């Protein structure tokens, strides 16, 4: 794991060896006076959860393990928050890991988009870890609790690494760190189906990751570089070669598999349905999003953006059109499948596949408005799905099941949990005043700006399908009578409800004041479309 060692090394090295500098615009040319700690913030974002993971695994008492893990999660969030503030303040940060400057050494490259993703992932990681204590105590045997937290931190490390790294092979390593830990996490689910779900995910996930490695191998073959910024300057000259086009194909398939783009989504429903509740919530809000982030990175930073998307492919379809068609097909098919699910977690999982379609639709539209819409939906949907799965997790905590029958009477007996669920459900539909509407609005704008009436129509139609499947769960919770003779069900404990409500309120807050995330998405879009990092 030489790559990882370099990362860990970085923290140990002092300022003298690590070269942090802000990519300066002329206006910001003044030498930044950075502290030792501030200098190494990029490394800290990775090192904190990475080093905490083995420490947590050593804790025997679950409570201790949880405390340390939660502390690590919050620290990581603070670090990424600092990074975002710095990026917004003074532009992209380039950090040479271990002092080995790019393009030979591994670079961390943090622009607005990656900083935004880092905060999102770290935020969701931190809230998941806070929520995990009660949930894990119920779903995971105490003997394995510390290992569970350790895996969560590793998964978090991997996802953060994918967002922060400017080196394509390093991204693969982080991808595998997050994937391997998530296979294991899913396998910790309480039924035996979790094993088969994890196994299937392992097979498909590994194929996806291997495709990715083939893709970057072919790129390396043509350019001799693995550094994203470097590739961006070298690739255009080779764009017409079959090798680079094959690389694009392999990368697209590999990353689409990890992002669960239809029709490569088959691993997702079972994986989400049978994983422990907190794992489902965490992965649903982060894993596919980060893969989409990497895809966007490749399309726009490495391959020079919209040029690639409008490139004429086989059958006269441009890559952008192909993505749009697949995305929309995914939205429709997955939404229809969601309607017929009888298990809330599975239903929401299918809905996730549909929502991934919206995000990629934005990318496929190949316009600034479309890309902004796709990116903002990454953020918004992360909040929405996170809240929904946290709420379902609270129901599972009480009833032991996420089946529609288990929801019966939840509206009456778990009013707070279900109220948060309703808020998040309305966001999923895209009711104005919630985050879901912001995404839908921007996506519709982007579609209509290009006169794509059919696309706009399908977006609206699938919103209606979302009404149907969200209402299916709401009706189950509020209209089905409380089952006779069942166990007495009370409201979920506060440690589950507080994180849940935090996220649910965020769904409303960012729906009424979306200027923050929209601003970040638009800045990120500009950076991406200007090419380079």
């Amino acid at each position: 794991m030489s790559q990882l060692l370099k990362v860990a090394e970085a923290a140990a090295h002092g300022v003298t060896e690590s070269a942090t500098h802000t990519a300066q615009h002329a206006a910001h040319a003044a030498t930044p006076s950075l502290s030792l700690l501030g200098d190494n913030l990029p490394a800290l974002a990775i090192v904190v959860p990475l080093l905490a993971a083995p420490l947590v695994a050593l804790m025997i008492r679950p409570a201790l393990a949880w405390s340390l893990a939660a502390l690590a999660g919050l620290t990581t969030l603070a670090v990424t928050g600092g990074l975002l503030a710095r990026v917004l303040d003074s532009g992209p940060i380039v950090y040479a890991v271990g002092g080995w400057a790019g393009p030979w050494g591994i670079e961390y490259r943090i622009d607005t988009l990656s900083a935004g993703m880092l905060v999102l992932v770290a935020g969701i990681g931190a809230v998941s870890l806070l929520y995990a204590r009660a949930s894990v105590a119920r779903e995971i045997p105490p003997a394995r609790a510390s290992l569970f937290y350790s895996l969560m931190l590793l998964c978090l490390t991997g996802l953060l690494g994918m967002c922060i790294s400017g080196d394509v092979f390093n991204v693969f390593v982080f991808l595998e760190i997050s994937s391997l830990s998530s296979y294991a996490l899913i396998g910790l689910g309480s039924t035996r189906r979790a094993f088969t779900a994890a196994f299937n995910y392992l097979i498909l996930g590994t194929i996806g990751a291997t495709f990715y490695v083939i893709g970057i191998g072919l790129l390396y073959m043509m350019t001799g570089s693995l550094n994203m910024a470097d590739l961006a300057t070298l690739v255009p000259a080779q764009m017409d070669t079959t090798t680079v086009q094959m690389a694009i194909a392999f990368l697209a398939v590999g990353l689409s598999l990890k992002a669960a783009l239809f029709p490569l989504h088959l691993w997702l429903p079972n994986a989400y349905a049978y994983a422990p509740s907190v794992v489902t919530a965490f992965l649903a809000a982060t894993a596919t999003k980060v893969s989409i982030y990497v895809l966007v990175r490749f399309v726009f930073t490495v391959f020079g953006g919209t040029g690639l998307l409008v490139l004429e492919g086989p059958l006269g379809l441009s890559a952008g059109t192909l993505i749009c068609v697949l995305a929309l097909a995914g939205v429709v098919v997955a939404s229809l499948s969601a309607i017929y699910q009888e298990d809330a977690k599975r239903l929401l999982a299918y809905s996730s596949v549909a929502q991934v379609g919206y995000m990629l639709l934005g990318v496929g539209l190949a316009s600034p408005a479309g890309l902004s819409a796709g990116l903002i939906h990454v953020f918004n949907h992360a909040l929405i799905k996170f809240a929904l799965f946290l709420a379902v997790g609270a129901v599972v905590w009480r009833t032991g099941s996420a089946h529609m029958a288990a929801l019966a009477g939840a509206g009456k007996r778990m009013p707070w949990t279900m109220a948060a669920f309703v808020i998040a459900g309305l966001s999923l539909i895209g009711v104005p005043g919630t985050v879901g509407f912001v995404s839908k609005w921007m996506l519709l704008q982007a579609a209509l700006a290009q006169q794509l009436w059919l696309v706009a129509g399908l977006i609206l139609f699938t919103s209606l399908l979302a009404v149907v499947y969200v209402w299916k769960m709401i009706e189950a919770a509020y209209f089905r009578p409380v089952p006779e003779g069942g166990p007495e069900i009370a409201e979920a404990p506060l440690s589950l409800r507080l994180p849940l409500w935090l996220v649910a309120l965020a769904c409303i807050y960012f729906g009424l004041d979306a200027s923050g995330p929209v601003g970040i998405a638009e800045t990120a879009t500009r950076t991406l479309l200007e090419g380079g990092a």
Partner: protein
Amino acid sequence: MIIHPLLLIVATPLAGALLIALSAGKPTQRETVTLVTAGLLFWQVLRLLAHSLGGGTVSPVELAVMPGVPLALSVEPLGLIFALVASGLWIVNSVYSIGYMRGNNEAHQTRFYVCFGLAISFAMGIALADNLFTLFLFYEALTLSTYPLVTHKGGAEAREAGRVYLGILMSTSIGFLLLAIVWTWQATGRMDFTPGGILAGHVDEPEVGLLLFLFMYGIGKAALMPIHRWLPAAMVAPTPVSALLHAVAVVKAGVFSVVKVIVYIFGLDLLNASPSADWLLYAAGATILIASLIALKQDNLKRRLAYSTISQLSYVILAAAILAPLSVAGAALHIAAHAVGKITLFFAAGSIYTAAHKTQVSQLDGIGRRMPWTMGAFAIGALSMVGVPPTAGFLSKWFMLSGAWATEQWVAVGVIVLSTLLNAAYFLPIVYAAFFRAPPPDDAHHPPHGEAPWPIVAALTTTAGLTVLLFLFPRPVLDLALALVGATP
């Protein structure tokens, strides 16, 4: 800290709802909070009205949601009429609700009052909305907050009705209205309500007709046929809900939005110049007549009232679609006139249900002798629906007819005349039977009863009185209605 007066109007019922939620399990406190909130709200709206009629202006309030997409509130004449009607009748309706909910021992009363407060707050938001986004936000919020009221009884029947209610209202608003709003925004780069409209010069023939179609059928709450079915479905709700929401707040929010879109988004001039927009007149006319015919056949009193509402709502749409300033003023007036009349009719229906447990028109023989107040009020409401003086319905119909006559829209004139006859045909027999037919003898099926509890009677007498008062003293509302179309009174 001084809160902006418009914000306060939206926030007052919201705060009331919160306080009601905190008063769970304390009926008296809950009802007191409702009444006090309703009174406070009405007082604020009245102050705003006095201020506006006195020529004062209120600066709009804005909150940026997305770049270029603010949540904005402002005051204009039509919104004032709607706010005045909805907040004023909320007080009366709250008194009525107390009698009704207690009289019928309804469950989940806290939820009922909370959702009611929320719904009123969102209705105020609609009334004061300064742009399409704000309107859409409160419009959807109103749909969602009334859903628990429609399904109040629980059980399979309520769930099915809830599905129809939500299904039609949400699918039209998401499928058509949102698309229309985004289209408008794309075409013009703005979406604020502006006198004279914003679309002129940005949308050509025949897209104007298409866009109008998306708006009119997107605003499902206006119940233009064939998207009217949610309204009869909503009648499973307790009567106070049907009375205030499905005769006043919700449906009026629909036609209010229709008028607002026609006047402030399209502009009368653009529509007059666009032959592709002519269909609206015929669609509204057809809805008026067909709904009246269906109403004739309904034996369930509330369903008959519901179809009557559908027909009356289309009067407003028809009046707006005539596109003459006088008829548009008539449309605005009819929003108020129909509100007080129809709420009286629903109050009477609920009163009959509470006192006699009767729901069918055919059971009402001679009931006027037992419940003279209720049926007297019913008669006044019915006359207003038909448009007979001295009731408010006459005034608004007069303005509509004048507008249609002046612009030589003979189809509209014909529809109004014909529907007046139909209105008479389905309302007057009820009044006749109630007062002049002999009541059935008292037996197990027809236990003896008297009037409903006093809050109910007080409420329906008040609204019946308002129906007459609005005819006798129409000045404030009329001034607003005329200000809407820029005519000097």
